[in-house]
């Protein structure tokens, strides 16, 4: 089993506030890793260190190493654009651009230099099929994406992310703004996507973590309490805190 990300001694500070403490973790290729833990424990912060989205926030300092395919992404000459192309992200709130469905999907490929209309058309069809939306929207590709339902918007965002052919998809509570039907559609999708992509997903929903993930990592107060196979975490966690959280005794 290949390791996609190797994280060692990762510390992150917002100004003087330490949000992540000595994180060590491996994220494996073609597996779904779930990050769970109470609100404010640093899950989103951690997720955003993997594609360097925290660089946007002023006053953030990061120590330690995050290796992606063996290379430290915080190294001096690392190409962030290439990183973000390989490590895509789906956000908590569906955030399609105020453009057409078609334009949303081809945005990434166009940025990365693809101009050929046929190629772009094929990307749109392929990615919409991957998110099981092609039949629903194939007749209205030129309609505004903001006219779609919340669940459709989120799947469109996943398609937009797939369009740049990433290797990893980071998802920050991708279903928390959706109803149960849309949620189960996306969960079903995750399993299929895991065949081709490495997925890291933040969720507050224990059942969801249990249902979809191969590995689960429990965060508490900026630290990783434990990471293990999902069955183990849910049936026989090593740490008492993990058990308490999973059984709903706090958090």
């Amino acid at each position, binding site marked *: 089993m290949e390791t996609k990300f190797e994280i060692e001694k990762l510390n992150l500070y917002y100004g003087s506030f330490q949000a992540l403490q000595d994180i060590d973790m491996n994220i494996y290729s073609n597996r779904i890793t779930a990050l769970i833990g109470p609100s404010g424990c640093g899950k989103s912060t951690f997720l955003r260190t993997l*594609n360097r*989205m925290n660089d*946007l926030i002023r006053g953030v300092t990061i120590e330690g190493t995050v290796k992606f395919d063996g290379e430290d992404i915080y190294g001096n000459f690392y190409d962030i*654009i*290439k990183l*973000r*192309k390989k490590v*895509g*992200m789906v*956000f908590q*709130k569906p*955030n*399609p*651009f*105020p*453009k057409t469905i078609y334009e949303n999907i081809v*945005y*990434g490929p166009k*940025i*990365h230099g693809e101009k050929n209309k046929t190629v772009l058309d094929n990307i749109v069809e392929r990615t919409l099929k991957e998110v099981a939306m092609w039949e629903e929207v194939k007749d209205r590709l030129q309609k505004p994406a903001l006219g779609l339902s919340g669940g459709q918007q989120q799947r469109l*965002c996943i398609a*937009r*992310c797939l369009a*740049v052919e990433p290797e990893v998809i980071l998802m920050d509570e991708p279903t928390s703004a959706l109803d149960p039907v849309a949620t189960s559609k996306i969960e079903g999708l995750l399993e299929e996507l895991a065949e081709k992509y490495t997925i890291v997903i933040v969720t507050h929903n224990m059942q969801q973590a249990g249902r979809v993930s191969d590995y689960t990592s429990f965060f508490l107060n900026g630290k990783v309490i434990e990471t293990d196979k999902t069955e183990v975490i849910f049936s026989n966690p090593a740490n008492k805190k993990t058990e308490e959280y999973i059984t709903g005794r706090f958090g």
Partner: protein
Amino acid sequence: MKTYEKAIEKVILLSAIMATISVGLITFFIFRSGLPVLLEYGIIDFIFGTTWSPTNGDYGILPLIAGTLSITIGSLIIGVPTGIACAVFLAEILQKKWAKAFKFSIELLAGIPSVVYGFFGLVVLIPAIREYILPIYQFFDPEVSQTGFSVLAGAVILAIMILPTIVSMSENSIAAVPVEFKEASLALGANKMETIVRVLIPAAKSGILSSIILGMGRAIGETMAVLLITGNMAKIPGTILDPVATLTGTIAMEMGYASPTHQQVLFAVGIVLFVVIMILNIIAQLSVRKIGGNA
């Protein structure tokens, strides 16, 4: 307390009524003074006539329209890219605290009386045009001789005058674009410039557009500054160094000595301005409302 509040309410109501009535009266007065002569002379002859020579009874305002249009378009060509670039810089690139100071000082530009701009143009811009731009023209055509009072001078000054409107409204609408769009773009591997050009500016376009339209309204309505520096020759300009007369400038200059008919014609010019600016304001209002609807 109750009666006091009621009194205040009455005063406010009265002020509102007064304001509305004044606008109504002014409109009525302009139309009453200008409309008869406009209809008598013929709207087509009036708007498309190429000779403006009031002393001979020629009231074709096409040269004036061309004058106003040329400096307005010129000011937009200079002012819009500068203004948008400035707005982007303030909203996205500069640190917040510096951006505030910059924005404040740009907004101060709006408070400078327009005659001061005109005077600045007169003593700085016009000599500069004569000295640096004219020689370029003369290089190609030695015959050319111009004074510097020109379309170019008017366009430059107007560009500076519309900058506060464009910058502050565009900055507001760029800053109001949800951060989620920016993050989505960056997360797809776009760089900052691509994100600005392809996501932020398009998402803010109705605000930017209405800032341009309002700026245009200001440019068309501006009188004093352009009066001082455009040369006031009622001729359709051939090059940007030709002098022109504007609709507003002509009204201001000729009202003082106009014969009764001439005076009515100037009111008719006022009607043209009134209608054009009204239309621009309505367009701007509509596009602002559209942003509200989208958000």
